[in-house]
């Protein structure tokens, strides 16, 4: 399998008053195309920071991220926005859908930002919402959907632009057990069908159990990186 994402000696330091916090301490890790990876670790271990840096939402203090052959180190804010738009999908813990847009419009929004024409947008959002099991709910606004349904819309939105990777930060944290299971089954299915790389930061053992590769972070370092046999 080809490498889609490479983290080279990622270091991140925060300053809180006079104290320096080392969120990441030289993390080296690669991800292959089509992998479904979970990253876990105690609070403050650096999971979210790693995800943010991979997603170009934050810059590392040192090191580099190579995504699909592109170094994120020296890109401008505008170029990073374009990279996020075209190559990265995000699923957040709190769903983070745009409340004034319908489910279909939330999915289409990404495509609109890409300049995709109306007809193609409609077709793609319809296809994705069908894939995530929300057929018939396209015209509902987030406030009219359950938490599980909102997270499914978020997954559909993350996949809308055919990204190279999907980053999910605690995607099941706000869901009940049933909805968590359904979401994980959906993500596994989409991972296999679309061959998209999915990286999930999580505390949830169920999520970890769904992924073949599991990385444990402790104090900003990779403690274990295990891949289970298929």
């Amino acid at each position, binding site marked *: 399998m080809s490498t889609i994402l490479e983290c080279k000696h990622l270091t991140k330091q925060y300053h809180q008053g006079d104290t320096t916090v080392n969120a990441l301490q030289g993390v080296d890790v690669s991800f292959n195309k089509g992998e479904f990876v979970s990253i876990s670790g105690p609070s403050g271990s650096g999971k979210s920071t790693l995800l943010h840096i991979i997603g170009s939402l*934050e810059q590392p203090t040192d090191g580099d991220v190579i995504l699909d052959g592109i170094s994120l180190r020296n890109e401008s*804010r*505008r170029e990073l926005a374009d990279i*996020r738009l*075209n190559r990265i999908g995000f699923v957040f813990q709190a769903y983070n859908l*745009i409340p*004034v*847009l319908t489910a279909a419009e939330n999915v289409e929004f990404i495509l609109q*930002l890409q300049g995709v024409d109306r007809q193609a947008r409609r077709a793609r959002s319809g296809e994705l919402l069908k894939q995530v099991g929300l057929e018939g709910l396209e015209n509902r606004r987030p406030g009219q959907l359950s938490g599980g349904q909102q997270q499914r819309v978020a997954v559909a939105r993350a996949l809308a632009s055919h990204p190279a990777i999907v980053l999910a930060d605690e995607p099941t944290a706000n869901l009940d057990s049933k909805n968590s299971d359904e979401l994980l089954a959906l993500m596994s299915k989409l991972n296999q069908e679309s061959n998209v790389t999915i990286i999930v930061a999580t505390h949830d053992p169920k999520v970890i159990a769904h992924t073949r590769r599991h990385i444990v972070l402790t104090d900003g370092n990779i403690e274990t990186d295990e891949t289970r046999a298929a």
Partner: protein
Amino acid sequence: MLAGLAWRNLWRQPRRTLLNVISIAFAALIMVFLLSFQMGTYATMKENVLQVIDGYAQVQPTGYQDSPDLKKTIADSDAIMKQIETVTGVATTAPRTTTFAILSNGEKSVGAAVLGVDPEREVRVSRLNRSIIHGNYLDREDSNAIVLGAALARSLGVEVGDSLTLLGEGLDGSIAADVLTVKGIFESGTPELDRQLSEMPLARFQEDFAMDAAVNLIVVTGPTLAGVLDALPDLEPLLNDREVELKSWKQLQPGLDAAINLDLNTSLMWYASMVIVVVFIILNTLLMSVLERTREFGVLLSIGMRPGKLGVMIWMELSLLALLGLLVGIGLGCVVTLLIGHYGLELPGAEAIFSQWGLPGRLYPRLSLLSISAGPGAMALCIFLAGILPYRRVRRLQPVDAMRAA
């Protein structure tokens, strides 16, 4: 796409948006009405003052305005009038002679301004003939007739049909003397004119004051003041090499121009204060809305929206709010102005000031493109410019920091 999203965002807090729209609309309404009212009043002032005697413009001998003198004359007035009347915007012209003389009735003598006028032309440039309260205005058959202001007639103790004596100095230094019959008494509405002014036939004046066919000035008028003002640049070349100069209404009535400017400038300061207050209210609300939605902006940046586009979206929200408020305000302002323009507005207690500027007791606002667009336009500009503040704030947001915002 951005406009649609901005529009929906506006209506997330309908009550807040409505309050903002009402604030903008109310300010726009007030500005449209008050500007229309001012413009209407200024136009009435100008028309009433200028149509009484001065006309919209005058051709005068060089230096006549600063130092009026019977000896400063225009020799070829007929030719000049013919040429001027060919210019678009000018309707008619009228020649005048003018001097100061002594008018006497028995033992009563009063110094007065005496104008020699061509009655047929004069009625087309001046409304004095419509201000006659006793007797009649001059006509082409009149020879030794004179019309007087009411206060002047009272000072002389004359009535219609009485005779009075005119005594002055002719163009050649001779004594100009005549006996004239009072044909009419006018009340122009301008006390100063009613105290000082008299008019007699031009031919008789020229004969009395040994002027041959010379005149002292040519009054220029047209269907509208604006039309004559527009025509002035075309008139200038016609007057070259004739030792005359063209005077616009502002030069003829500098006091009126200054009064209008003073009133307008005072109002502008008031309008500016109102615009600033409204802009700050709107800006405050928008900044509050931006703060409330910082987390959402972080999400939008995370999913790939460019910071500039996000800033444009916020700016559009402000612009749409302003546009909505201004359209409502302009619409209501036009309705209110048209209604009051139809019935008029009485301002009790201001009669003395009104009569000074020839204003009637009831004032009528006049809608114009300027009165509709100036206030709301200034407001729109200020609101759009104020939008730079939230635009800049949003553009500087970092996705992670924004998403961490409470």
